[in-house]
């Protein structure tokens, strides 16, 4: 398998002394399902957003698809972002618009300014959006307004919006943090399915260790802006988990709530 994404000595500094990320290096292969775990404020979200340059890294190189994206200019950046889908904790849909309109927003990056402004989509794009919504089990909801959907349904719309981009990689920022266990399972199953059948690389920020353990090929543990674990789920022993979460881990264990997050 070829390497799709590689981070080399990436650091991110806010202001003069707040370091969000320091010297992060790792590579993600095509088709991998990678989970990034770590306590709140460890820099998981910042790390994820550096990968599509929603946040600019202060130093280091980020190689995506054999090109150094840190040097990308506006046009190239736009093209890069069309090939990376993103999914959010709070879904970030336009609530007043219908499901299909929100899904088609994923095509805006491919369009001319005017076609995007007027919302003119080709038949092919609409068919693709319908097909994806069908796969995600939302064919009944296609013309509903998004504010009438449940959380799990909204997140599936978010996934559809990312998939309609034809992405090579999906970045998921806490995709199940606002969902109940059942909806969480549906979402994670969909992500795993996307990864295995479509060959799309998935990078997920997670709070739930057990979910990360059962779904990913690989786990990256982050604490205080540095990588403290990088390996298979099987190799993630209790001691190593304690290394990622610090004292917080014992509390998680003690309360019996492994889902706590």
């Amino acid at each position, binding site marked *: 398998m070829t390497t799709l994404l590689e981070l080399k000595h990436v650091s991110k500094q806010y202001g003069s002394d707040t370091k969000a990320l320091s010297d992060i290096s790792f590579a993600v292969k095509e088709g991998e399902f990678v989970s990034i775990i770590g306590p709140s404020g460890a820099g998981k979200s910042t790390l994820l957003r550096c990968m599509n340059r929603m946040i600019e890294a202060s130093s280091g190189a980020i190689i995506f698809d054999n090109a150094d994206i840190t040097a990308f200019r506006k046009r190239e950046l736009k093209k890069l972002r069309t090939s990376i889908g993103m999914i959010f904790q709070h879904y970030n849909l336009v609530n007043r618009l219908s499901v299909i*309109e929100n899904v088609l927003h994923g095509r*805006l*990056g491919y369009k001319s300014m005017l076609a*995007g402004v007027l919302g003119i989509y080709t038949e092919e794009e609409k068919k693709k959006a319908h097909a994806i919504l069908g796969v995600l089990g939302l064919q009944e909801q296609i013309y509903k*307004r998004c504010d009438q959907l449940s959380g799990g349904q909204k997140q599936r719309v978010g996934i559809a*919006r990312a998939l309609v981009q034809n992405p090579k990689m999906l970045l998921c920022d806490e995709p199940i943090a606002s969902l109940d266990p059942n909806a969480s399972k549906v979402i994670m199953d969909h992500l795993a399915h996307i990864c295995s059948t479509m060959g799309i690389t998935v990078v997920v920020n997670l709070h739930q260790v057990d979910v990360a353990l059962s779904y990913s090929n690989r786990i990256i543990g982050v604490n205080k802006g540095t990588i403290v674990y990088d390996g298979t789920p099987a190799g993630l022993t209790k001691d190593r988990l304690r290394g990622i979460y610090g004292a917080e881990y014992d509390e998680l264990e003690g309360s019996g709530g492994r889902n706590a997050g």
Partner: protein
Amino acid sequence: MDAKLPAKPFNKSAFVIRMTLLSLAALTLVGFLTFDYKDLDLGEAVKKTGDTLGTMFLEPHAKHFTVGEAFQQVIITIGLAFLTTLFGAVIALFLALLTARNLSHPVVSLVIKGVVAFIRAVPTVLWVLIFAVAAGLGSVAAVIGMTFHSISYLVKAYSESFEELDDGVIEALRASGAGWWQIVFQAVLPSSVSYIISWTFVRFEINFAVAIAMGAAAGAGGIGYDMFMASNYYYDLREIGFITYVILGFAILLELLARGIKNKLRTNH
């Protein structure tokens, strides 16, 4: 324990409000007791006011123009209000995009906000009179001055409704490669369209009232000018009453129209 236990914790703002109301009540009392009434008999004055209002509103007539002409004049006034609201809304929409903090550069946003706040602080009538220096008293000055103030009012209203939009939505679209104009038309405007309609109608109502005053104060024509003539030139109380009824009728009509449009929008979306 000697002291009574307070039912609720001491609250500074509630205390300030209570003291303000108390001192205002005291001042009102002192004011009425120390007025210089000259030889005015309060009872008679109230009665005469009642008589005047009675003449105005119970025996209205149209002497210097026909009912048809009055309607025509109101249409002119509404036209003035409509034109200035339309100009204001179109220009304000674009300025508001540059003013909304989540869509614009912070410096640009701050500069426009400052300028607009200054324009808003000066009343519309004053702006019309200022523009009258260049354009002369009349409809041109009224249109420019009222548009000017409408822009500043609507920029504030629009930009604040744009800022209501969740930053995450903008982030999501940016992350999928969408450009600024695409985000504006696909996310920002659809999310705030009902606010925009409401604020525009509020401003239209304000502009209708201002347009009447402009007819009287700045010679902009319309029903306001007839009212000015009736009160200052003919001293015809009955005609003032008639004009007031015509204006009231149209104001109610506009209100019903606005509500109809808003309801329609709500069910469509």
